[in-house]
């Protein structure tokens, strides 16, 4: 047999060595922290989330009288901010956040386990405007939700050491239940149905969904005008269920992330985009083709998802939330993130445990 370049012995040997080498590389790299553990599917969204079966019972449909702690009416977009989170301010706010003393951590088994592990494993998003957006430079997420997770890590560990797993609505509860993550910070709306599977700490923010339309559109000014129109939102968000409840005649065309929804609106595929108000405002800044109209027509309380098996988890996180709300870190974080698009001071934080399910 001719021993040419495709001699089977050489080919076989080469294949075996190649497979061995690459398996080593692959195993080595897939053991690295960044996004190595389980689960997510195509619908990874930052904004609010879909209730598994039943609609959330806490949707207040009043257009301008939301529950205590809500941000109130939609801020005017008159150039109050650029929507860009200033890294220096943000890092400063995180660094100034409190750290727990050892006694408190020793007393709480959940926190103790995290301290021993040395890292806080979080579930969240990488593509959420204002709440949890990946910073290409540092590889870490930046935003309100991200900031809260980093503050909690700092509280327990002394530094903001977090390990993010990208989650979606399908995988959030599973990841908490099987212990892959310690807490989910993902504009996670508190509903009694979800509270049966996992525990919610908070609420830490009450938000609402608003409507974005093209700049030249004059017929849509409130949620009722959406009847019979084509509306987009992010897949698996609470806005989706809210729309199905409040305007059943609207045709829904969900997309997987914010940029796609805005593109669909500006390109004329849909007439309106409905999602959390702060996200809409951050999109509208600098984009003359769209505008935000009307008042928030839903009430979305966001909470931190933790395990239900260990009641000390919820206890600890609620205590920590109270601490940062009292010493002003919560307000500072709000100002540094959501405050870049919404005028005025930070609202009063919602009362912990005030929402059914929390």
């Amino acid at each position, binding site marked *: *047999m001719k021993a*040419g370049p*495709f*001699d*089977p012995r050489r*080919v076989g040997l080469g*294949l075996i060595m*190649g*497979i061995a080498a*690459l*398996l080593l*590389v*692959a195993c080595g*790299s*897939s*053991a690295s922290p*960044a*996004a*190595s*553990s*389980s*689960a*997510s*599917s*195509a619908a*990874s969204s*930052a904004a609010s989330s879909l209730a598994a079966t039943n609609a959330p019972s806490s949707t207040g449909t009043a257009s301008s009288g939301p529950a205590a702690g809500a941000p109130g009416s939609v801020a005017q977009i008159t150039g109050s901010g650029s929507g860009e989170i200033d890294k220096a301010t943000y890092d400063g706010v995180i660094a100034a956040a409190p750290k727990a003393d050892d006694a408190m951590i020793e007393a709480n088994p959940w926190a103790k386990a995290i301290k021993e592990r040395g890292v806080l494993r979080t579930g969240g998003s*990488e*593509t*959420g*405007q204002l709440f949890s*957006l*990946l910073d*290409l*430079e540092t590889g870490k997420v930046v935003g309100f939700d991200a900031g809260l997770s980093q503050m909690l890590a700092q509280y327990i560990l002394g530094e903001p050491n977090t390990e993010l797993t*990208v989650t979606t609505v*399908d*995988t959030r509860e*599973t990841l908490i239940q*099987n212990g*892959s993550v310690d807490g989910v910070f993902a504009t996670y709306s508190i509903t009694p149905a979800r509270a049966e599977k996992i525990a919610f700490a908070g609420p830490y923010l009450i938000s609402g969904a608003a409507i974005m339309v093209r700049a030249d559109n004059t017929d849509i000014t409130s949620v009722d005008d959406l009847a019979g129109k084509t509306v987009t939102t992010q897949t698996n968000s609470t806005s989706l269920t809210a729309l199905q409840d409040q305007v059943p005649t609207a045709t829904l065309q969900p997309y*997987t*992330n*914010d*940029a*796609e929804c*805005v*593109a669909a609106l500006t390109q004329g595929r849909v007439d309106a985009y409905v999602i959390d108000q702060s996200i809409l405002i951050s*999109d509208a800044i600098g*984009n003359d083709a769209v505008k935000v109209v009307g008042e928030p027509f839903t009430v979305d309380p966001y909470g931190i998802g933790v395990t239900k098996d260990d009641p000390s988890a919820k206890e600890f996180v609620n205590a920590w939330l109270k601490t940062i709300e009292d010493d002003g870190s919560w307000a500072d974080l709000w100002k540094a993130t959501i405050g870049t698009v919404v005028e005025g001071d930070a609202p009063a934080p919602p009362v912990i445990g005030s929402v059914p399910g929390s």
Partner: protein
Amino acid sequence: MSSTTRVLFDEPGPRARRQIQVATAVSLLAIAGVIYLAVARFADSGQLAAAKWSIFTTPLVRTFLWEGFVNTMKLTVVSGLIALPLGILFALLRLAHNKIARWLGTAYVEVFRSVPLLLLVLMFVLALPPLGVNLPIFWKICVPIVMCNAAILAEIFRAGVNALPKGQLEASLAIGLTYWQAMRLVIFPQSIRLIVPALVTQLVSLLKDSTLGYAASFPELLRTANVLTARTHTLIQVYIVISLIYVIINLLLSYLARVLERRLNRTRVSSAGREGGAIEDTPVGGVLPMETAPGGAIMR
């Protein structure tokens, strides 16, 4: 042009030549017109603004995309290297004398050639974790790709074996080799040479399959692009650049396949063993170097 069509077309006379010239001019104008229109409309919608494209000059974005690219390559190569021996295994199963082995091989290949890859990925990502099978993200996308491509590779190997003239097997049996010895020493080495271009083409298909890492949140190139669009709000530009990257890489791989095919056909043993007939319809012609269908399925 193939020899058939060359024969059919007469050498164009003066009138035909003029017609061809006119047609050439008209089509050139039409094509230029369409391209100009498309670009103009694109510019009108503001997508050609320098600001939107300048993000690609920042080293940040380039590094980010490069990492996505590296992940795609890693996924492709690892899946390919695992699928290859598996494909050989299933091909051997299908070629075995044992009925059960043949049935197993056929069942696997027929099922996994017909299942959409996306479905398998979704199964691994959504349906299996609650049952306890929770692989790291890389393997969540790698294993489904391997499963599907092993089936297709098995078919390619089998086609390679079947493309050899039957005389080879008969002769090896006649000189006293057992079936498996004949396979190992005579048939496989020759068929590997036949199918190497098809294997490289299958690699192209594998690379295209890697985009389904999108569904598994594996940070391969398409997924990286998605994160980038969320970060920079430049949806179209990012997708255009990514598409170009994919097309160029695949073009290079296809070119490699063609070069390999030409090289191998030059150095291979002459047509001593081939049955008669025109070049076009030897059994070898059946093992096509190019992808004959989306997904690479050949010779059902």
